């Protein structure tokens, strides 16, 4: 597609449930990033994928968070046993090779009740 596509756009889940968030980057973009924006906070880096290299997971806040990128394209961010503090907008971005020139998706607004 023309842009970065994220689904679902909104997700409400009960505390303790697992959720999966999907990101479909721009075709040909080798770099993919996940960020999240909690209420009143900036964009917090979570994880970075670049081609076939090992991902940089240094931003993941806990071991309940994991992400995969299959075939160098679509990425899934999984949050296990969700907590209320996980409520945020989760943003995915892709770029040709990292650095500037990110294109962001519209995000998934996750609400844990």
């Amino acid at each position, binding site marked *: 597609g023309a842009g*970065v596509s994220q689904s679902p756009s909104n997700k409400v889940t009960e505390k303790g449930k697992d959720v999966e968030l999907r990101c479909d980057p721009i075709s040909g973009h080798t*770099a993919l*990033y996940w*960020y999240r924006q909690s209420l*009143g*906070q*900036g*964009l*917090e*880096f979570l994880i*970075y994928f*670049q081609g076939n290299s090992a991902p*940089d997971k*240094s*931003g993941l806040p806990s071991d309940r968070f994991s992400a995969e990128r299959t075939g160098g394209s679509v990425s899934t961010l999984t949050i296990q046993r969700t907590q209320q503090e996980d409520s945020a907008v989760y*943003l995915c*971005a892709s770029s040709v*090779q*990292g*650095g*500037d*020139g*990110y*294109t*962001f*998706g*519209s*995000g998934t607004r996750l609400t844990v009740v």
Partner: protein
Amino acid sequence: DQQVKQNSPSLSVQEGRISILNCDYTNSMFDYFLWYKKYPAEGPTFLISISSIKDKNEDGRFTVFLNKSAKHLSLHIVPSQPGDSAVYFCAALDGGATNKLIFGTGTLLAVQP
């Protein structure tokens, strides 16, 4: 520890006047900075950037100024238009292997007609 800071959570200006959004950073190794604009329910979009070898970069109504000694940058919008009303994020490029962007907390700009 917030490496990129936007100390004004909001700013209101009259249409036609100048908007000045400020950003401070703590890491003197940062050498590339960007401004992103975000409308509600949309992902951030790239606005303008500046390299540390420059102290000013201009693009139409938008100008970014960089003061390296003060570790400060600012975005000037002149003349401001109601369509400029959005959240503006300052970001610094972390030039390590990840090339990720480190974002500030954003400033909500409201341009009054």
